[in-house]
């Protein structure tokens, strides 16, 4: 743009309201400042050069060739690199006090008394608060509000909040912390997940008439779809594995911090690095007993979230309560250890995975039993319990799905949502199981997957509506680029290669708070005044993933403006419309859709104004870089500012609002909404590893990571998400673990012993972007933030097997664990030196040809379904001979959906399934 021009010519234009001589039709045609439309970014269906192998999209005509699809640096990047980005602890208000939290030293205890008198006498102590100051419950899910700002009756884990203090400085606050005397009555604590299933004298929470038995079961799920009874008749190969997954923490580099401030007009402003400011807003209103409009939630820059900053937190309540009592701002900052006490990391789990394949190499059954450890509170756990099951019913077409899941309370810091929420562990179990099935059937695991994929625009066995699917392309790309054919089962001992796939939601179909019923999930406001710059108001929380950038890009694209003319205001609930927050990978999909719809309204007004000025036909007009012109005769047109000022005549600033709500979808059985999403992302990774058979040390050397994100609005950010996901998943599979000692104490609440991969552990990652052009996504986009994490775990596990022939079933695969497995294998095979072990080899069976043929056939079917708009419905079950156009449970009674276990099952349940042995209190008639 400006580079080629003479500086002298740039000056001279001043904005003088009322004095702007509007250019005549045809002016600006020999424009030297404005760059032409970028034809390479404009789809073929709109006259550009961009190839569209996946067909056209409803947003095609809005593409002006500005920024969508180009690698774009974050709009707030310069703030971050200069140190001027203000994170939670960087908010310093005049007169601030330092808040500290008094935490429980016991796993489980009744709080008998709290004596603050000595602490209050200490000079410099301004306010102390305890549970009696705020007794209302809150929680992220309206159905499971079980948290208090501070302990009201009991403390439920070490580190649970008991009281808080605000003082002039940190030393005084710490001293006051010491002087507060708390008397506890210690109760028997529960640390093993399995114990949570049993009746206990003092259940950790009491759910009244909904309490299950007298046990610590927070949520139990039973689901059966498809021909469950026929599984064992049909199966010729079966896989069974009992998995143990350790808990992992998000370990975001920024520890939680919060500043509470009541202004002179009596309103609360809470500064907090939050992923989900709206739920904090609601929870504050509940706890403080003030209306929501009296609260302004200010989201600071967020130093990494990954799900760890998505609950309304008790310390946020504490800051507000202390600031109210003290009459001064209060800042609470966690040290690293406290981050582990608040946790909300991935659930420690025990998963039993059973997979079955029939003689045609079809997956005729998946039976999963997942017992997950919720720690002391519910958090997102209600959803997590479902996600551990339903999120592995795709991308494969399956004959039967049986799932029993239970989440129990234990006296550990609460588990919650973490990147890949609920899907990561069970996905790892499924994908390694498929690898084992392929081994048993003597076929290539990639071909086994390719021959069992659901087609685009289909319904999964649980009734999820899947639109675009790029799974096949992901698998084909990683297979080709990794040199799979030459490496798989052919490398020497200690070198291995493995495959893993992923499937994840792109936003959840039902908002957590569904009241009022038709409230949109995301809303975006635009405001354009005389200067021509566009102010975007959105409540979407940018947690570093670049949501501000994506919303700015979307607006810039539709209005044909450079990115620097867009400014995003997304921090304050006072000025931004409600957005449900950065969780379940919903922001790009929902918020960009809302932004596009808001921008379309402004665009319409600009086009109308252009018609008025130029007399050109409206349907002939296109928007280019800061110009609106006739597409056949570009000399006829006006500049953006001319059109804008015309549109603003007699009314001033243009404002518009756009919103997004998911379409109605899904089935009606209990739990049908969990896992429903307007679109799903798919991914396939190949990992290459080296394993030292003598030490058990595993190193990941290379990862080929293909992810179907629909359309990469910002390829730089998508690649960043893919590589970052590899990093986090690699941590979980090889080194990260919240280790609890024999007495149940967390042994590694710091970044020295909790080992996240450093730069030396990172493999070379080759990110591969697959664009399946989702029909409902903004410009075709789906999520890219969480899905890419799923495949890395099983890819590494499978590669370890390929390298040394050992299947690990306990994560992380630390050297000591792997060495034990190696020793066991050596013993079983009568070998003394592990270097003499044989790595597995593959000789294809006849089934391989059947699978390859079916995969070729399905590839044609998928292409047809993808491009042909007149497609028939396709329900999971067609591969097993059912009519694809009718839901299978309506054709075949064997495929009936079942969400209540039969008496037969209850008599002989799997581990988590035994949660169904208990009866809810309300059905026992004793309360």
């Amino acid at each position, binding site marked *: 743009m400006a580079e080629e021009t003479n500086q002298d010519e740039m000056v001279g234009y001043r904005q003088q309201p009322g004095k702007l001589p509007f250019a005549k039709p045809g002016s600006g045609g020999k424009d030297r400042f*404005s760059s032409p439309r970028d034809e390479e970014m404009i789809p073929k269906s709109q006259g550009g050069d961009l190839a569209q192998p996946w067909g056209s999209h409803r947003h095609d005509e809005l593409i002006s060739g500005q920024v969508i699809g180009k690698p774009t640096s974050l709009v707030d*990047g310069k703030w971050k690199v*200069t*140190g001027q980005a203000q994170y939670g602890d960087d908010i310093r208000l005049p007169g601030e006090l330092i808040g500290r939290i008094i935490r429980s030293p016991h796993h489980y205890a009744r709080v008998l008394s709290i004596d603050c008198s000595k602490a209050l006498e200490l000079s410099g102590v301004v306010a102390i608060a305890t549970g009696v100051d705020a007794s209302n419950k809150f929680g992220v899910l309206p159905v499971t509000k079980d948290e208090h700002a501070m302990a009201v009756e009991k403390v439920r884990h070490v580190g649970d909040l008991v009281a808080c203090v605000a003082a002039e400085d940190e030393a005084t606050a710490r001293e006051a912390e010491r002087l507060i005397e708390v008397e506890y009555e210690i109760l028997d604590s529960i640390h093993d997940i399995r114990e949570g299933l049993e009746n206990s004298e003092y259940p950790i929470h009491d759910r009244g008439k909904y309490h299950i038995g007298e046990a610590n079961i927070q949520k139990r799920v039973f689901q059966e779809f498809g021909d469950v009874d026929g599984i064992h008749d049909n199966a010729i190969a079966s896989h069974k594995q009992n998995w143990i997954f350790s808990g992992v923490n998000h370990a975001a*580099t920024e*520890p939680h911090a919060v500043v509470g401030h009541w202004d002179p007009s009596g309103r609360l402003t809470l500064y907090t690095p939050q992923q989900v400011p709206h739920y904090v807003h609601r929870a504050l209103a509940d706890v403080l007993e003030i209306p929501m409009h009296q609260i302004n939630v200010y989201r600071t820059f967020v130093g990494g979230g990954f799900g760890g900053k998505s609950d309304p937190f008790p310390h946020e309540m504490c800051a507000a309560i202390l600031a109210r009592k003290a009459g001064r701002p209060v800042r609470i900052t966690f040290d690293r250890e406290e981050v582990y006490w608040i946790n909300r990391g991935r659930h420690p789990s025990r998963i039993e995975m059973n997979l079955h394949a029939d003689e045609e190499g079809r997956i005729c059954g998946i039976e999963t039993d997942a017992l997950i450890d919720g720690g002391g509170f519910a958090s997102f756990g209600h959803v997590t319990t479902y996600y551990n099951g339903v999120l592995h019913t795709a991308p494969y077409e399956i004959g039967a799905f049986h799932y029993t899941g239970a989440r129990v309370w234990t006296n550990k810091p609460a588990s919650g949502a973490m990147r890949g929420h609920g899907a990561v562990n069970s996905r790892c179990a499924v994908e390694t199981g498929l690898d084992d099935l392929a081994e048993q059937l003597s076929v290539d695991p990639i071909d086994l997957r390719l021959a069992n994929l659901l087609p685009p625009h289909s319904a999964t066995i649980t009734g999820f509506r899947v639109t675009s699917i790029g799974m096949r392309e992901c698998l084909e790309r990683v297979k080709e680029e990794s040199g799979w054919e030459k490496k798989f089962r052919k490398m020497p001992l200690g070198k291995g290669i493995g495959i893993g796939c992923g499937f994840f939601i792109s936003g959840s179909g039902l908002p957590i708070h569904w009241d009022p019923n038709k409230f949109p999930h995301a809303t975006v406001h635009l405001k354009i005044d005389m200067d021509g710059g566009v102010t975007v108001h959105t409540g979407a929380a940018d947690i570093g993933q670049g949501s501000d950038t994506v919303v700015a890009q979307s607006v810039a694209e539709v209005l044909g403006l450079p990115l620097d*003319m867009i400014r995003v205001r997304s921090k304050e609930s006072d000025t931004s419309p409600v957005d449900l927050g950065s969780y379940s990978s919903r922001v790009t999909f929902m918020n960009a859709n809302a932004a596009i719809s808001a921008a379309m309204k402004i665009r319409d007004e600009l086009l109308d104004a252009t018609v008025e000025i130029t007399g050109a036909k409206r349907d002939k007009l296109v928007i280019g870089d800061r110009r609106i012109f006739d597409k056949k005769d570009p000399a006829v047109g006006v500049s953006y500012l001319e059109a804008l000022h015309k549109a603003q005549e007699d009314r001033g600033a243009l404002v518009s609002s756009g919103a997004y709500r998911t379409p109605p979808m899904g089935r009606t059985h209990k739990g049908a909404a969990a896992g429903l999403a307007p679109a799903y992302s798919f991914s396939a990774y190949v990992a290459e590893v080296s394993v030292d058979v003598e030490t058990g040390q595993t190193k990941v050397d290379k990862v080929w990571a293909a992810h179907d994100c629909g359309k990469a609005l910002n390829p730089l950010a998508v690649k*960043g998400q893919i590589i970052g996901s590899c990093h986090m998943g690699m941590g979980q599979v090889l080194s990260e673990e919240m280790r609890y000692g024999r007495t149940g104490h967390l042994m590694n609440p710091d970044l020295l012993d909790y080992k996240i991969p450093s*730069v030396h552990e990172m493999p070379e990652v080759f990110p591969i972007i697959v664009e399946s052009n989702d029909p409902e996504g903004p410009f075709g986009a789906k999520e890219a933030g969480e899905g890419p994490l799923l495949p890395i775990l099983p890819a590494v596990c499978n590669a370890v097997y390929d390298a040394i022939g050992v299947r690990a079933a306990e994560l992380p695969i630390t050297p000591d664990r792997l060495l034990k497995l190696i020793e066991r294998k050596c013993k079983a095979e009568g070998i003394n030196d592990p270097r003499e072990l044989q790595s597995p080899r593959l000789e294809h069976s006849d089934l391989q040809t059947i699978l390859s043929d079916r995969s070729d056939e399905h590839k044609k079917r998928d292409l047809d379904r993808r491009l042909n708009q007149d497609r028939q419905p396709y329900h999971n079950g067609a591969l097993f001979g059912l009519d694809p156009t009718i839901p299978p449970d309506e054709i075949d009674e064997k495929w009936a959906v079942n969400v209540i276990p039969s008496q037969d099952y209850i008599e002989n349940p799997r581990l988590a399934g035994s949660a169904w042995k208990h009866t809810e209190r309300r059905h026992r008639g004793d309360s």
Partner: protein
Amino acid sequence: MVQHRLPMLPSAGEVPWIASVNGTEKKLNIENNAILLDVLRDQAGSLGTKRGCDMGTCGCCSVLIDGEPRLSCLTLAVEADGCKITTVEGLADGHHLHPIQEMFAECGGSQCGFCTPGFLVVASSLLENNPSPNDEEIKSAIEGNLCRCTGYQQIVDSIRAASEILISEETIEDSTSPKSDPHPGFTGE
């Protein structure tokens, strides 16, 4: 059961402290047991220096002391008395960003940005001593810094790109230079 905690270690009192922080001489009175990170954040106004772990594991608090990268959370402030301290705020020349800052913003080296100040300070010191490091040298330089978002790959890319800019002596545009004109081609005549 009543819980008891040990009192904090007392400070032996305040001492005068003079250091050059980003080229400005700071004369402060500090507690003699104060940690440099606390002094920088709470007293010297360098909120760009981040606190991630307080125990030298994450590298977020890295600063340059007399040109050498140091973890300010493991440094007593008195140790840096009389020294020249550079934090992330001292890297840019007015509105001209340091190439390393420009490239972190441009190449995806910064996502959430919390670890970025630490990486920038360490990387600027690397490039000062070794203007064209290879990938192994870059990795060794940043091995003490943790990043949870990027998986390091784009950080290494950013440092490499900055090294190329430094070698070619390209100038970074002043960030206050005029942005896009909403009325291109119009001269007001």
